[in-house]
């Protein structure tokens, strides 16, 4: 394994551990998304990987080198780890090009023009940070991180300030570079779409422990518990054979007659489709439809049994 995290524990107050003995590994060139609620310790975890925070117990190994354990601590300056921060901190006294090449080893200078064209910043080279928009500042931070060909790239909400018009193309480009350079990447994000789009694997984090670590399809279709199911998108609770089951909205189809009748509450137009919100057995329920429905009418839906998701009793009520 390229990156290995073993029994990692991190706390600021021993009585309240932020990260409780987590274990996982990442292959070379893999992109892993780290998702969880605000304040759950995602950023602290990235800081542990980068060396900005020391771990309290456990071990971090990158490329067969121990970066941090009880006996060893490699300083952030010595780790070949790049970090894209959430508040895109460009140094205000340097122009864009000076920021990107800040403290850069001369062997990486050859990457400059490629990085500038990649992030579409060629025409802004001599502008100072306060003369750049939020999106431009963020792209500059991305360029500054990638130019030095890191062994591990850490990204803390890197796309949150990008305009929708360029966000997709930047994500595509970054994805290409990461793939091309085989840069192992950990992305912390709130945007589930970003996570599903570019990740090889997704790690769901809650209450200091890993809830599930799997590829996006498995995570979406076979969530480990109700929390994992909900964090990736809407999920409907239904009763099937007198047992509680769950199903994604897109797996419900409108039919003329069925045992499942939904009372429509609201209809959302989403361009190519309508998302319908309603009530099924006194519980909120969502499904998609090509045509709109009026409020308070009843719509019958059906599904395939194979699309049902089942949780055991413990996972069913997890975090509910």
């Amino acid at each position, binding site marked *: 394994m390229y990156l290995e995290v073993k029994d990692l524990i991190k706390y600021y107050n021993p009585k309240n551990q932020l990260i409780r003995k987590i274990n996982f590994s990442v292959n070379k060139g893999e992109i892993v998304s780290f998702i969880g609620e605000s304040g759950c310790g995602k950023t602290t975890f990235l*800081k542990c990987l*980068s*060396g*900005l925070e*020391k771990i309290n117990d456990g071990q971090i*190994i990158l490329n*067969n*080198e*121990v*970066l941090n354990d*009880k*006996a*060893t*601590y*490699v*300083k*952030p*300056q*010595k780790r070949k*780890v*790049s*970090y894209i*921060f*959430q*508040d895109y*901190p*460009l*140094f*205000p*006294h340097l122009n864009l090009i000076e920021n990107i090449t*800040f*403290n*850069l080893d001369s062997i990486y200078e050859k990457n400059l023009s490629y990085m500038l064209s990649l992030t579409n910043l060629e025409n802004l080279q001599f502008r100072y*940070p*306060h*003369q*750049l928009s939020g999106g431009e*500042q963020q792209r500059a931070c991305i360029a*500054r991180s990638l130019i*030095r060909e890191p062994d591990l790239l850490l990204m803390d909400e890197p796309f949150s300030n990008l305009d929708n018009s360029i966000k997709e193309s930047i994500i595509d480009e970054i994805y290409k570079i990461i793939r091309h350079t085989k840069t192992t990447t950990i992305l912390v994000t709130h945007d589930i779409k970003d996570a599903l789009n570019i990740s090889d694997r997704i790690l769901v984090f809650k209450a200091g422990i890993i809830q599930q670590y799997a590829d996006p399809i498995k995570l979406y279709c076979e969530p480990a518990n109700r929390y994992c199911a909900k964090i990736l998108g809407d999920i409907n609770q239904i009763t099937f054979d007198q047992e509680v089951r769950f199903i994604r909205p897109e797996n419900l189809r409108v039919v003329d007659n069925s045992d499942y009748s939904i009372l429509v509450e609201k209809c959302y137009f989403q361009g190519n489709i309508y998302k319908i919100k309603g009530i099924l057995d006194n519980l909120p329920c969502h499904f998609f439809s090509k045509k709109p429905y009026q409020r308070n009418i009843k719509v019958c839906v059906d599904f395939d049994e194979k699309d049902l998701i089942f949780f055991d009793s413990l996972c069913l009520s997890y975090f509910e």
Partner: protein
Amino acid sequence: MINLVGNNNFYVKYENKRWILVSILISFFILLPILSVFFKNFFQDGENSFDYIWNTLILEYSLSTIYLIFLTSFFSLILGIFPAWYISLYKFPLRNFYDIVLFLPLAIPSYIMSFTYSDILSFTGPIQSFLRNKLPYIYPFFNKDYLQIEILSILLGFALSPYVYSVSRISFSLIGSAYFNLSRNLGLSSFKIFYKVILPLSRPAILSGLFLVIMEVLNEYGAVKYFGVNTFTTGIFKAWFSFGDVKTSIQLASILLVIVFILLRVEKISTKKTKFHYKINAKSNTLIDLDKRKLFTAHTICMFPILFGFFVPFLHILNNSIMAIKTINISHLFELTLNSILISFLSAFLIVFLATFFQYCERLSRSKVAGLINSLISLGYAIPGAVVGLGIIILFTSINYYFDSVYLIGTLFTLIYALVIRFLAVGKSPIKSSLEKHPKSYDETGKILGLYSLGLFRKVFFPINISAMIIAFIITFVDLMKELPITLILRPFNFDTLATQTYEFAIEEMLVKSSIYSLVIILIGASMLIILKKFIYKYNYVS
């Protein structure tokens, strides 16, 4: 195969502690004279008049000190915040002019302000003379004793309001039009926006300016003595010089020091609780055209502190200087000017260096020890200059047993040493607020990009804080130019400065003769403050 690389935990744990260790050593050297004063206090035997002061004067000292602080704070806030509000938010004629000259009252030492106003308001002064001759019917209403604590607080309010003005001005500008527009959109009137949004957001900045005002009031001697107000500082001098009782004066200084330490902690806690981070790398604020109906109010609010805080005393001193022009010894004046500049320059340079070191150390280590050191080294600002001078004398006579240190008393070295102790807090303030403005992610980015503590300072924090250091240098320089008691006590033999010469003539009631020296202090101070203004706004992207 797993390779073990890097450093062990022991090294890591103590990595930043080397910085703390050095800062402890330097701070010990800075605090040594103050410590030696208190050491002597506790180990000196003999009678003292502390019981007498405790039973008779302590209540009066406390009440008049609190009353003076309260009134001066009130006037400084009024005279500082309202002009800052208009100038930061609105566009109107003469706005730029006001913006420059509102700093100028700082150029006039408060003792010179008091001497001048008491001269202007006295029986033989221009106002009473004019009223006596031209308007004898209303003259009796103006024939009053103006040497009152309330008048003193107004004068101190004028002299010290730039401390509040400067911090409010920057804060109001940086908060920006976004909040202003949002509040308007939410239906708030200008006045409500001011006290419901802008004031609460600027509270930490205003408090830091007010803290400097309070420190100045606590330490004020010349003006307070002239007005016959009994504060702790006058008590310290009275016990020392009138009763010849050093121990009592030090006991009073101890009380003052405790008060100041409590104030420092309160300011720190309050600032921490209400910390507001201005947006990084943000564009500057857009000014709003002022409604013509509000023009008169804006001009009155901006003109009032400048007129009475600078132009009236300045013109009076200028007039006196012209009257005394034939008696001026130009070469002597030039020599005193050079002496003042030399002492102020060397001390200010050293102060900025040390203040930057201490602040950077606190930022790096984020430890409580570094925070405490920074609070302790600020205490010198609250101690009357004379006590600092006394501390140096006690220290150097005490260690004379080990080496011939007594010969150092009365040299430039001890004078600068004392000035550094006394004015370190002044230089620290702009550097502190500048460093606090930069997010923690700058440090983290620097480290991730391969920089160590010194490299981080050299490549990031020095260039982005250079303007704050220049601002700190100028503010300290102007304050040092005005400094009096330490220079009087510790100056080398036959060594005079503009301030000492002004004071020597003034106490001999030769106000006219002292004016030219005051005028030079004011002119140098005013030029430096105009340069300062340019720096502050350029550096903060203030519109």
